[in-house]
C-alpha cells in the first residue's frame, strides 16, 4: 500500500532533521544545567528583587572558600602559597587570593578619610552621649600596652578613631592578618588555617567548570595531605559538581538497569530479537524531548533529564498496543495490527499530552520543562510507533508463548472470583483503606529535598563556617529610596535595629552602605558632638598632648570632604560593599543590606516592619511556601485536565464510558496517596507530580482495556506489559539518592500497581468469561458497533 511506503520515508526525513537540530545544539558540549535551583520559579517577582538576588547569589555560587590547615603556622602558609599557585596556574579561576594587599599607605589614607563613617555604632553613641567617658577612655588607651593599636600614626589620629574603624572593615573576629606574610589566618587549638578565596570563572554555560574546579580541589587536598596538612573546601560550585556527578551516575545506572530489564522483558514476551526495535521510540522520545527543551529554554536541566528519562516507560508502551495483539491473531501483521489499535493509540497520546501539558502552567520551571520534554518526547515516540516501526516489523512472525496469556486469564478469573465472593468487603475495604491512609499523610516541602545528600560537603562547609565565623546567607534586605540621602537614612534606621539583634547575639553581623557613608542627620549629630568635644579635653591634655593639636584634629574632621557613594565605593577599602549598591533606576535608587549567620526569619521581618522602603528578601522561605502553593495549583490543573480528557473521551466512549475510564486512574492515584500515608512517607511537590503522572498513564491502561481489541485477556497482557515497562523505568527512581526523586519513584510505583489492578473495570458491561482467543477483525467490528 502507498502509505506503508511513504510513512516511514516521511518519518525518516523528520528524524534526520531532528538529528541535525540536536547535533547543532550539542556542538559546544552538552547544554545541560546542573543547578537544580535554576528551575525555581522566577516569573513572580519584580525585576529589581531578581537583580538583587543575583547580586547576592552570584558570589555564593562562584566563590570557593578553602582552608589550608597545618600544625605548624609556617608550614600552613607555605603550603597555601603552593596550593594557591597551583590553582592560579590551572586557569579555572578568575581570582585566587590568600594574602591581603601589601600597600598600607593607601589603606591608611582611606581609613583616615572614612574614619567617622566607619566608626562602630557603640563608639558613635559614646562620642555623642558621653564625651567625657570617650576622652577618658582614649587617654587610657594611649598608655595601655595592649589597647588602641592602629595602622595610622598617633599624631594623625589623636582621637583613635581609625583603630575602631578597622573593626568595621573586618568584622569577622576569627580571621587575623599575619603581618609577616599577609596571610589570613585562623587558629584553632590544634592547627593554623590559612584562608584562600577563589573565584571560579563565571561562565554559566561552561558545563565543565564545576568538574574542573572539583578536580583542582581534589588535587590541592592531596597536596595538603602529602605535606601532613588538611584542606577544607566549600562553595556552590562544588555542590553543583556533586549534583552533576550524581545525576550522571544515576541516569546511567538507573537508565541502564531499566534498558536491560526492558530488553529481557521483551525477549521473554515475544521471543523475537527484532521486537527489540520497539525500543526505538524511546530513543526518539529522548532525542525529541531534549531538543525541544534546549530549543525552548536554551538548555536542559539535569533534573528534567532524570525525571524525563522515565518517559521511556510511556514511550515503550505505544508499540505494545499493537505488538500485544499477537496473542489474539493467528497471523499477526504489523500494519493491520497498528491500524486496528490506532484509535486507542491516538487517544492515549491525546490524554497523555493533556495530562503533561497541565504541568506547564505551574510557576515551577522544573515542571514546565518536564511538560515540554514529555510532550515533545511523546509525540516523537507516537510518530515513530505508527510510521516507522510497522515497517520494521513487516513480515515478522510472532508466535508468543502462551504463558502470559494463561497468566492474564488466571488474573481475570481471580478478579471475577473476588468480585463474586468479596464484593462487599472490597466496596467497604478500599474506601476505608484510602481514608485511613490519607488521614495519616503529612506534607513536607523543603528546598533541601532538591539537593542530594552530600554529607561530606556539608560537614566541610559547617566546619569552615565555625572556623571563619562567617556564614553568608541568601537572606538580605532590599532598601529603596528616592535618592542617595534617603537611602542612607533608611539603611541607617534599619542598621539601628540590626545592631540590637547583633548585640543580643541573634544576628552575627551585617553589611550596609551607611557604614561607609553617613546620612546627613547622623553626620550633623557627630559634628555637633565634635564641636563640643574641646570642653572635655582635660585627660588628654594631662597626658601631654597639645591642645592645638587636638583642636586641629577636630577642625579637620569637621571639614573633611564628603565624597559621593560612587566615589567611596571605588576605593579598595570599600570592596566588600560594592555589590550592595544597586545604583539609580527610573524609580529612584536602591541598595542592599547583606546578612551574616542564620537568623530566624521572623526576627528579620520584625526588623523591617514599619520602615519605609525596606523589604526582607528571603528566597528560601518564600520558595518553601511556594512549594505548597504549587501543589495545590498543580492538583487543580490536573482536575481541569481530567475534565478536558473526559470531554475528549466522550467522542469514542460516550459520557458514561469516559467517566469510567477517567475515574479509574484517579482512584488509583487516591489509593497510592493512601499508601504513602500508611508508609509514613511525606507528600511533597514531587509525589504530587508523580500522582499527576499516574493519572496520565493510568488512563492509557483504562483505554487499552476499554477498547479491548482482541479480547479482554489479550488487552490485559498489553496492560501488564505496559505497566511492567513503565515500572522498570519509573519505579527504579525509587533508588535515587536525591530524596525528591526517590519520593517521586515510590509514588509512581504505587500508582502503576493500582492502575493495573483497577484497569479491568474499564471494560464496559458485566465482566465476561475470559476468551481464549478472538479474531482481531471481529473485535474491531464489535468496537465499531458499540
Amino acid at each position, binding site marked *: 500500500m502507498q502509505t506503508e511506503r511513504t510513512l516511514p520515508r516521511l518519518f525518516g526525513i523528520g528524524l534526520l532533521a531532528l538529528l541535525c537540530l540536536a547535533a547543532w545544539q550539542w556542538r559546544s558540549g552538552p547544554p545541560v544545567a546542573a543547578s537544580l535551583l535554576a528551575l525555581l520559579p522566577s516569573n513572580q517577582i519584580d525585576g529589581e528583587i531578581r537583580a538583587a538576588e543575583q547580586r547576592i547569589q552570584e558570589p555564593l555560587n562562584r566563590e570557593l572558600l578553602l582552608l589550608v590547615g597545618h600544625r605548624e603556622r609556617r608550614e600552613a602558609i607555605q603550603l597555601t602559597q603552593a596550593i594557591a599557585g597551583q590553582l592560579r596556574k590551572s586557569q579555572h579561576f578568575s581570582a585566587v587570593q590568600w594574602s591581603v594587599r601589601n600597600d598600607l599607605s593607601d589603606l591608611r589614607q582611606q581609613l583616615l578619610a572614612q574614619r567617622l563613617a566607619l566608626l562602630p555604632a557603640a563608639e558613635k553613641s559614646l562620642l555623642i552621649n558621653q564625651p567625657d567617658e570617650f576622652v577618658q577612655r582614649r587617654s587610657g588607651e594611649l598608655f595601655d600596652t595592649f589597647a588602641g*593599636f592602629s595602622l595610622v600614626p598617633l599624631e594623625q589620629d589623636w582621637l583613635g578613631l581609625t583603630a575602631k574603624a578597622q573593626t568595621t572593615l573586618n568584622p569577622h573576629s576569627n580571621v587575623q592578618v599575619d*603581618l609577616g606574610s599577609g596571610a589570613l589566618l585562623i587558629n584553632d587549638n590544634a592547627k593554623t588555617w590559612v584562608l584562600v578565596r577563589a573565584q571560579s570563572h563565571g561562565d554559566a554555560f561552561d558545563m565543565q567548570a564545576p568538574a574542573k574546579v572539583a578536580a583542582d580541589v581534589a588535587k590541592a587536598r592531596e597536596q595538603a595531605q602529602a605535606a601532613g596538612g588538611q584542606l577544607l573546601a566549600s562553595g556552590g560550585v562544588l555542590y553543583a559538581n556533586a549534583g552533576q556527578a550524581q545525576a550522571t551516575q544515576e541516569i546511567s545506572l538507573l537508565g541502564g538497569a531499566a534498558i536491560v530489564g526492558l530488553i529481557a522483558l521483551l525477549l521473554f514476551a515475544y521471543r523475537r530479537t527484532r521486537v527489540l526495535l520497539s525500543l526505538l521510540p524511546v530513543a526518539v522520545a529522548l532525542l525529541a524531548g531534549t531538543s525541544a527543551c534546549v530549543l525552548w529554554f536554551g538548555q536542559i536541566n539535569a533534573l528534567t533529564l532524570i525525571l524525563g528519562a522515565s518517559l521511556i516507560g510511556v514511550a515503550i508502551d505505544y508499540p505494545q498496543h499493537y505488538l500485544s495483539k499477537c496473542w489474539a491473531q493467528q497471523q499477526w501483521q504489523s500494519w493491520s495490527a497498528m491500524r486496528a489499535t490506532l484509535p486507542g493509540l491516538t487517544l492515549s497520546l491525546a490524554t497523555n499530552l493533556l495530562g503533561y501539558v497541565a504541568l506547564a502552567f505551574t510557576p515551577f520551571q522544573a515542571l514546565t520543562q518536564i511538560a515540554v520534554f514529555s510532550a515533545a518526547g511523546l509525540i516523537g515516540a507516537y510518530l515513530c510507533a505508527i510510521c516507522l516501526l510497522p515497517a520494521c516489523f513487516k513480515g515478522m512472525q510472532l508466535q508468543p508463548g502462551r504463558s502470559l496469556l494463561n497468566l492474564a486469564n488466571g488474573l481475570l478469573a481471580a478478579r471475577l472470583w473476588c468480585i463474586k465472593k468479596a464484593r462487599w468487603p472490597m466496596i467497604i475495604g478500599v474506601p476505608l483503606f484510602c481514608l485511613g491512609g490519607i488521614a495519616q499523610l503529612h506534607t513536607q516541602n523543603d528546598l533541601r529535598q532538591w539537593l542530594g545528600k552530600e554529607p561530606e560537603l556539608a560537614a566541610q562547609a559547617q566546619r569552615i563556617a565555625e572556623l571563619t565565623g562567617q556564614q553568608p546567607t541568601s537572606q538580605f534586605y532590599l532598601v529603596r529610596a528616592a535618592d542617595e540621602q534617603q537611602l542612607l537614612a533608611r539603611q541607617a534606621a534599619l542598621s539601628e535595629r540590626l545592631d540590637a539583634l547583633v548585640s543580643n547575639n541573634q544576628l552575627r553581623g551585617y553589611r550596609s552602605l551607611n557604614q561607609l557613608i553617613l546620612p546627613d542627620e547622623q553626620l550633623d549629630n557627630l559634628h555637633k558632638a565634635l564641636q563640643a568635644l574641646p570642653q572635655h579635653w582635660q585627660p588628654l591634655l594631662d597626658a601631654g598632648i597639645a591642645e592645638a593639636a587636638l583642636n586641629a584634629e577636630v577642625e579637620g574632621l569637621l571639614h573633611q570632604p564628603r565624597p559621593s557613594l560612587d566615589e567611596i565605593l571605588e576605593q579598595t577599602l570599600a570592596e566588600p560593599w560594592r555589590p550592595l549598591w544597586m545604583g539609580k533606576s527610573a524609580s529612584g535608587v536602591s541598595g542592599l543590606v547583606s546578612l551574616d549567620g542564620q537568623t530566624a526569619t521572623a526576627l528579620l521581618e520584625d526588623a523591617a516592619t514599619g520602615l519605609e522602603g525596606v523589604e526582607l528578601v528571603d528566597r528560601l522561605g518564600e520558595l518553601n511556601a511556594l512549594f505548597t502553593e504549587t501543589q495545590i495549583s498543580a492538583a487543580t490543573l490536573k482536575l481541569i485536565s481530567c475534565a478536558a480528557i473526559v470531554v475528549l473521551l466522550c467522542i469514542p466512549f460516550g459520557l458514561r464510558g469516559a467517566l469510567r475510564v477517567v475515574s479509574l486512574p484517579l482512584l488509583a492515584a487516591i489509593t497510592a496517596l493512601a499508601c504513602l500515608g500508611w508508609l509514613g512517607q511525606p507528600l511533597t511537590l514531587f509525589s504530587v507530580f508523580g500522582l499527576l503522572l499516574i493519572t496520565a498513564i493510568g488512563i492509557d491502561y483504562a483505554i487499552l482495556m476499554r477498547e479491548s481489541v482482541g479480547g479482554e485477556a489479550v488487552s490485559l497482557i498489553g496492560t501488564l506489559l505496559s505497566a511492567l515497562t513503565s515500572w522498570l523505568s519509573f519505579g527504579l527512581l525509587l533508588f535515587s539518592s536525591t530524596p525528591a526523586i526517590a519520593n517521586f519513584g515510590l509514588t509512581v510505583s504505587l500508582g502503576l500497581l493500582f492502575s493495573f489492578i483497577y484497569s479491568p473495570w474499564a471494560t464496559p458491561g458485566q465482566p465476561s468469561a475470559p476468551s481464549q482467543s478472538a479474531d482481531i477483525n471481529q473485535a474491531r467490528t464489535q468496537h465499531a458497533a458499540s
Partner: protein
Amino acid sequence: MSRFYLRVVCMLGCLLLTPLAQAFDLNDLSRQLGKHLVVRGPFVQEKHLRAMARPLTSRGLFVLAADTGLLWQLKTPIAQDYRINADGIAKRTANGWQVQPGNNAAAQQSRLFLALLRGDRTGLEADFTLQLEGTSDEWTLTLTPRALLLQQIFSHIEIQGATLVQRIELFETQGDRTLLKLPDSQASDALTAAERDAFAD
C-alpha cells in the same frame, strides 16, 4: 593590624630570646635567657612621638613563666592587667579574666610570643632577620623585618641585655619609637601563689 601588639610580642619574645649563631651566638643567648623558669620585674614603657615634647610613659609589673605565659600588670597612669597564654590575650575585668576578641592580630601575635617562649623560633625567623653583637654580659640583638607589610610598620627592633633582657626599642617606619625598659628583672624558679592563681582561672 596591630602595631602595638606586634611590638609587645616582639619585645617580650626577646626577653627569653632564642638561638642563632656567632662567637657569642644566638644559641648561647637563647640558652642564657631560656634557663630561667620565671622572670619578673618592673617595666617602664615610653612612647616617643614626633609630635610630642615628652614621651607617654606608663609603668607596671610583669611576670613571665616559661611554661604558662605572661602576666602584664599596668599600674600607672591607668591600672589594667593582661594575661597572655595559649588561649590568647585576656583582660582582667570585674567579672574575672575576659579573653579579648581577636579582631586584631592580638591572639595571633600572643601565640607567636608563646611559641617563642617554648623555644619555637621559626615564626620570628620567618618574619625577621636577626643580628647579634656583643658578649654574654652586654649584647644587642637587632631584628629587621623581611616582609613588606612589616617593613611598612617597623624599620627595625633593638634588644639589649646582659643576663636578662634590659631594654627593647622599636623604631617605627613613620618616625615614632617605643622604648620598653626592664631595669630590675629577677629570675626565679617558681611562681608565687597569687601568680599561680592569676594563671589558673
